[in-house]
């Protein structure tokens, strides 16, 4: 058995292999549900009812998909240029810190100004958090994977310090949480009496804007070129460093927005458990979305179904909720196999 490089890649093929990866992952999940002593079909039924079976379930799935679209975009933008930003979790918290700093009374504007202002500062905070690592990689050849990963731990400790110290809300009855975002800065609900907020719409708009930027602008072209072959891009006159810096700012900015919408949309105040690993799940979302902004939207909804559904399933038939994390991880590996099958055809004998 050997691999033979394909000369042409049909456009539908990557999406086919991704669909295959989803099916493969769900088969693996079925094995795990069975291992937990529950019938897999009942498990999937509970999962689906829990994430789509009622008005409340659907809005919950949308609310969970919101940060995942942003973190998925953050990872997809960076990975497309082969810039391995694994620090999305930290940049998410940086965005949350920024909206907490400005949104808890420091500045008061009417809502139509306050909300865009908070989103912009979160975006900037996320981008600036990633910037040092971009510069270290471009100018000192320091591997960005490790630096961005380590920064996650540093930022989460910083959040912990602020929430237990200077930013602690005196009315929080001892819980480490920050003061509430002022009313003018809170995102309105999309569906009344639910947790689905305007952030979901903003996330979809962001994905469409990024799609436009990537497919219709010079920056989009050069960021793709940098990802495919850095030295070829350099020789054709693209400033690689400039492109990577822009990519870093944009990627970190999306991560910052994830933290912002969670804080001003979902929770209303910053806590230390704002993100249960949305930054890492974003990597899986990006892979499953084929690093395509529109693909990311669907991949994020898929992951949200898994998360919300696995919660419901665990309550109904007692399968550990960690099943959702296993599914997320398995999709990354399954999509990787799919990507190889896109680039190479498997030749058995010959």
């Amino acid at each position, binding site marked *: 058995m050997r*691999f033979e490089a394909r000369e042409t890649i049909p456009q539908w093929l990557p999406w086919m292999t991704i669909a295959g990866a989803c099916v493969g992952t769900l088969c693996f999940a079925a094995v795990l549900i069975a291992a937990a002593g529950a019938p897999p079909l009942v498990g999937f039924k509970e999962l689906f009812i829990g994430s789509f079976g009622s008005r409340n379930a659907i809005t919950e799935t949308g609310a969970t998909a919101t940060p995942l679209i942003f973190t998925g975009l953050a990872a997809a933008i960076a*990975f497309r240029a082969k810039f391995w930003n694994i620090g999305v979790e930290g940049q998410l918290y940086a965005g949350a810190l920024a909206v907490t700093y400005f949104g808890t009374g420091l500045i008061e504007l009417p809502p139509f100004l306050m909300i865009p202002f908070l989103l912009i500062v979160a975006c900037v905070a996320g981008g600036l958090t990633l910037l040092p690592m971009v510069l270290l990689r471009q100018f*000192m050849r320091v591997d960005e994977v490790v630096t961005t*990963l380590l920064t996650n731990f540093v930022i989460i400790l910083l959040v912990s310090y602020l929430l*237990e110290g200077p930013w602690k809300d005196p009315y929080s009855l001892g819980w480490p949480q920050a003061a509430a975002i002022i009313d003018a800065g809170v995102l309105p609900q999309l569906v009344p009496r639910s947790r689905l907020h305007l952030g979901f719409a903003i996330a979809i708009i962001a994905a469409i804007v990024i799609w436009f930027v990537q497919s219709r602008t010079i920056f989009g072209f050069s960021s793709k070129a940098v990802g495919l072959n850095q030295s070829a891009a350099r020789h054709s006159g693209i400033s690689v460093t400039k492109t990577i810096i822009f990519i870093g700012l944009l990627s970190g900015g999306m991560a910052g927005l994830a933290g912002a919408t969670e804080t001003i949309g979902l929770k209303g105040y910053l806590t230390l458990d704002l993100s249960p690993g949305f930054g890492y799940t974003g990597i899986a979302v990006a892979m499953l979305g084929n690093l395509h902004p529109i693909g990311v939207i669907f991949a994020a909804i898929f992951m949200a179904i898994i998360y919300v559904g696995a919660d419901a399933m665990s309550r109904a038939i007692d399968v550990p909720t*960690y099943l959702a994390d296993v599914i997320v*991880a398995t999709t990354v590996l399954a999509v990787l196999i799919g990507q190889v099958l896109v680039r190479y055809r498997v030749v058995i004998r010959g």
Partner: protein
Amino acid sequence: MILDFLEVLVNAGFWAATIRIACPLLLATLGELVCERAGVLNLGIEGIMSIGAMVGWTAVYMGADLSTGVLVAALVGAAFGLIHAGFTVYLGASQHVTGIGITLFASSIGYFAFRLLLPSSTTPPKITAFQPLDIPILSDLPFLGEAFFQHTAFTYLAFLAVPLVLWLLNRTPFGLAVKVAGENPMALEAQGIDVLSVRTLALVIGSALMALGGAYLTMSAFDAFYFGMVNGRGWIAVALVIFASWRPSKALLGALLFAGLDAYQVRAQQLAGAVVPYQFFLMLPYLLSIVAMVVAAKTTQYPKALLTPFRRGERH
């Protein structure tokens, strides 16, 4: 006040803690080093440590003896090394994404299995972990005894891994093949040696070492398994490999230096805790790892074929 900070250094407990903290880092760093010398970056390290910690502990909890637990951890680590090799060596998939995928997969499946085996236990149960060995004469020495000769068998095993890896890389034909696979795989192929098998074996050995690093946490340093207990040690090990410029002896130095700073940090926290919030002390290991990478970046020589998949018959 300044004297208090210096006094820590003449405290035998500080040195003993340094040795203890160094062990998991040392094993993980050596494991990553073996993989990278063969040309494969193994970012599965954090997850492999986590599952090593979980299976080693669980085996003992289920009734196996400690040495069997260690063996089980190593075997599970090796199995994940094999999975990594399947993706990166045979399929030529991105080493970055594969590694992150393996980390997510190994830790989540470990947590899932742990919850299945021990449903809803709020206080983690304990095992009888490795106990300090009593070495005649040496253990009773004043200061030196407490600092260096009252450790567990697992601790000495971790330090023994340094000469073992040195011997493997520098004195055996396999070690030579590993190094060539990481520098110039075509040359290895020209000798009629299968690059893919060499890289696979290096990943298997390296990942087993990583899992042992994790198992040290639950079987020697502590006696229970917690979620998230590896806490970035794997990523720190990746930084230490760069700091050590891919040399086992420098990895030993790096792990000890790092562990010393960490042990010192805990004690300084007690002295300065009132003035400086503890979170800033906890940040130090991560910040220091970044600094170490920046310092090493100028002079460092990466294995030339690191991150490059090898395909037979394809030109590079």
